[in-house]
């Protein structure tokens, strides 16, 4: 049962600046949605609202399964995840960082270990498993963030500026990971970026924030 996402009549302002005005959009199909727009237009805010860690001033975010609205509870929050631009690594090993999402869901032991190792291999970080996550480079930190999210097998994944502070080599690796995700982890992936060329390389659906609304381009 695929999870769909719909935002209805979202309004949000920051310090008197109206960021979203009656913004409605539906993410019904699987694939990679790339959200672009100039700095400060509300890309990150939109992702945070959709990921249920921020509330809009007005309007609502609903997740749909088979046409029915899914109740916004812990169960739903565990079917979606957002990778923050700064990731927020825990002061422990790379392995334990990735295992976190499983541990809080009560998945431990051999199954947990296999899933963590698979996720780490997927982002080519298997060899860094025992390293303290706070000693990773920016690019590796982003890849860790993606592995930490993917291990929970989210049905909707949000990536906020995954390559904003990353070198060329790691940008390439992260783009490859995203392209591979389309085949291996079919789900809805919503990514923000201000890199137009990258947007075109990755997008199944290209979106733009314009005048407080989201439009397809």
């Amino acid at each position: 049962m695929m999870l769909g996402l719909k935002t209805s009549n979202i309004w949000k302002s920051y310090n008197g600046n109206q960021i979203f005005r009656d913004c409605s959009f539906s993410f019904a199909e699987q694939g990679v949605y790339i959200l672009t727009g100039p700095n400060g237009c509300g890309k990150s805010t939109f992702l945070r609202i959709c990921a249920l860690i921020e509330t809009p001033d007005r309007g609502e975010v609903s997740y749909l399964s088979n046409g029915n609205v899914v109740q916004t509870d812990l169960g739903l929050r565990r079917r979606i995840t957002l990778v923050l631009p700064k990731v927020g690594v825990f002061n422990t090993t790379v392995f334990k960082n990735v295992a976190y999402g499983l541990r809080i869901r009560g998945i431990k032991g051999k199954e947990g270990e296999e899933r963590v190792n698979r996720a780490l291999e997927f982002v080519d970080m298997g060899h860094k498993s025992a390293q303290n996550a706070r000693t990773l480079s920016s690019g590796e930190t982003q890849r860790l963030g993606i592995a930490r999210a993917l291990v929970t097998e989210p049905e909707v994944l949000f990536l906020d500026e995954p390559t904003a502070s990353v070198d060329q080599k790691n940008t390439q690796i992260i783009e490859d990971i995203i392209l591979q995700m389309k085949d291996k982890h079919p789900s809805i992936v919503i990514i923000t970026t201000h890199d137009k060329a990258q947007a075109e390389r990755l997008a199944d659906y290209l979106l733009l924030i314009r005048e407080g609304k989201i439009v397809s381009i």
Partner: protein
Amino acid sequence: MSTILESFAEALSLILHLNKELLGIILLSLKVSGTALAVATLIGLPLSALLGFKKFPLKGLSVSILNTFMGLPPVVVGLFVYLLLSRSGPFGFMALLYTPTAMVIAQTILSLPIVTSLSHSAIIGVDPIIKQASMTLGATPFQVSLTVIREARYGIMSAIIAGFGRVMAEVGAILIVGGNIAGFTRVMTTTIALETDKGNFELALALGIILLSISLGINSALHLIQKKGMVGASR
């Protein structure tokens, strides 16, 4: 000068031939301060979490009072506990005055603000992004709080060690409520005070050296913990 050198030599000899009485004093010191610290940690850690995570009226004032209590004069705490436990006091019927339990109570009161306040600082010092990352990965509010506490663990360990340093070196409070009774409530610091008064410098020096060694051990542990907690901290 020769008296000091002779006293030092005698003190070293006392340490090397650790007699039963000396050992008893050291062990009682560790037992009293260790128990006080365990109690202070059991109360202080949940209290620091409450201050760190919950919003309630007069929270700022509570933190200010707690910080003020970090500098509580031991003799005042000793006097306060004495009044409570003395025969005419509200808890006199428990007959706790001049017992190791009274010393534990006094030292718990002394270390509680240190453990709580420094743990609170460690908890609120955790980067807010940790809380957000934990939420995005599907943690319950309780799991989010545990994650933040785990991230603050090196700071919390430092807080506990700082509390231990404070009570191990303290003399005023335990002298008042413990009474410095030989073989029962006599600990390192109270023995040093007494033996110095008596002019028995060898024993006082021997205990001083042991106390300093324990202090050095505690501070080395603190340094190691802080160093470990700093891994990749600039990122």
